[in-house]
């Protein structure tokens, strides 16, 4: 399967994530959209890794493995970010009983 399909699929997912972050008002859903962006990146990273492997396998048997390694790092960092982010959302919910982002405009004035 040509690489183009993977690129189009991940760019689509990534854009859905961006649109979600910019338009949705619920903090949890915004958060899910950010995760969607990260996972679109993971998908593309694996696709590129495979592509580089097929291109360079004759010269270097382990070509393309670094892309897959990167995916693990993204997953680990995303997990760390989720734990901190959910803690922040819970902390906010305790004080305001809402997770609506529109509620967050006290700092403007």
């Amino acid at each position: 399967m040509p690489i183009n399909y993977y690129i189009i699929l991940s760019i689509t997912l990534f854009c859905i994530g961006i649109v979600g972050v910019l338009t949705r008002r619920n903090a949890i859903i915004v958060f899910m959209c950010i995760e969607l962006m990260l996972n679109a990146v993971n998908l593309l990273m694996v696709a590129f890794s495979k592509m580089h492997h097929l291109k360079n396998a004759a010269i270097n048997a382990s070509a393309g493995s670094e892309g897959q390694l990167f995916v693990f790092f993204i997953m680990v960092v995303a997990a760390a970010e989720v734990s901190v982010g959910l803690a922040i959302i819970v902390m906010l919910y305790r004080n305001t009983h809402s997770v609506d982002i529109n509620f967050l405009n006290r700092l403007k004035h």
Partner: protein
Amino acid sequence: MNALIVAAILGVVMMFAGIITKQKSSIRLLAIAGLIVVLFANVLDTYGFHFFSIPLNGMLHFDKLSYFFTSIVLACTLIFFLLSAKDLEKVGFHYSEYFALIFFILCGIILVSAFGSLLILFLGIEIISIPLYILTGSDKKNLRSNEASLKYFLLGAFSTGLMLMGITMFYGSTGSFSILNSINVGAEPSAMLIVSVLLLVFSMSFKVSAAPFHFWTPDVYDGAPTVITSFMATIAKAAAFIAFIRLFYLGFGNIQSSWQWVIAVITAITLIIGNLTAVFQQSVKRMLAYSSIAQVGFMMMAILSLNTFSIEGILLYTAAYSIATLGIFSVLAKMKDYSFEAFNGFAKHQPIVAFSMTVFLLSLAGIPLTAGFLSKFYMLKSVMLTEKFLWLIILAVLMAAVSIYYYFRLIQVMYFKEGVEPAIEISSSFKWLLVVLAALVILLGIYPQLLFNWFYF
């Protein structure tokens, strides 16, 4: 490498120090002593004395720039600890954990100042950001702090997503994560590479808060506890900046013509928005947030020009800006009220503190004889050497003139207005430390070779 490992160990030590002792003064002493050890380890590293020999495989690439920048950041953090560590007590109950988080942030800073692979850039930026989200929200009952932390978190994670997409595109077009020698000289960059560079520009602009990606900055800096803001606005920002300049100096220097105009536009917008909005602020804290955006506009000129002048200049700039801003914020952290009126007649009641604050403000405004003037001069000269962006230099000088208005407003309020005595406790050691910092700002402004001789030793 020494400093990285020692700082990571100290982070863990500080986490456990909170269990062993409840005495705040001993925790503070431990943190300050630990930081001195890290600084010492880094200086030893600079002179070729390595504690550890670890094969890095091009992941990290320590050079003079990274060692020197790490030393500057560690020295600024030491200043921050000496000035404001006591005010950190007011933030919340978990005193030693705040120090632990700051040590982890220092690890991230050392990573981004020495990265050779985009993987380390990503990890370093995240190691800086995640503890900062926590520190921003550390005042748990305060709604403003909560709000700032959520805002910072959502936008930070969003920009991380953009950055990862940029890194992936880079990988797709070059087949490697290494920034050194990945892009061939003279070759026409592919469309994918250009998209990747643009995404990296946007995400790094988010991190250093350059306009039009700056909108989170005033809210977050205003909402976060003031002590944390002073750390965020100086040390964390300088680190994000050095990552930015390193990425473009080592990685994308070969294809400068394809991204230079984007940086020029971002610089111009940052200068205009930062300076003009700062004029209308009623709170000193918010004014400093906008002033930090305005200063980023000047620092962006180093990325625009990318020559030896800009590298020297950015080091001087980060040092001058960090010292001056840390000084002002340390006084602000002791105040109850952050409005300009709170500083009415400040010079009468606290003459020494007011004098050193005046020196810091003059330095930020770029008045000659201070380090701020010389660093702005270096930035303008480096752009002048490219012989392309004369309009930007004119704009920058005009905007520096605008900045004088809001910096001098604070000086005018302190010296020429009558006011009641502000209820703040200022110890004499704090006063003298401020005077030493003010002397340092002037010394760097007269004799910058002090810094550079060490760089080129």
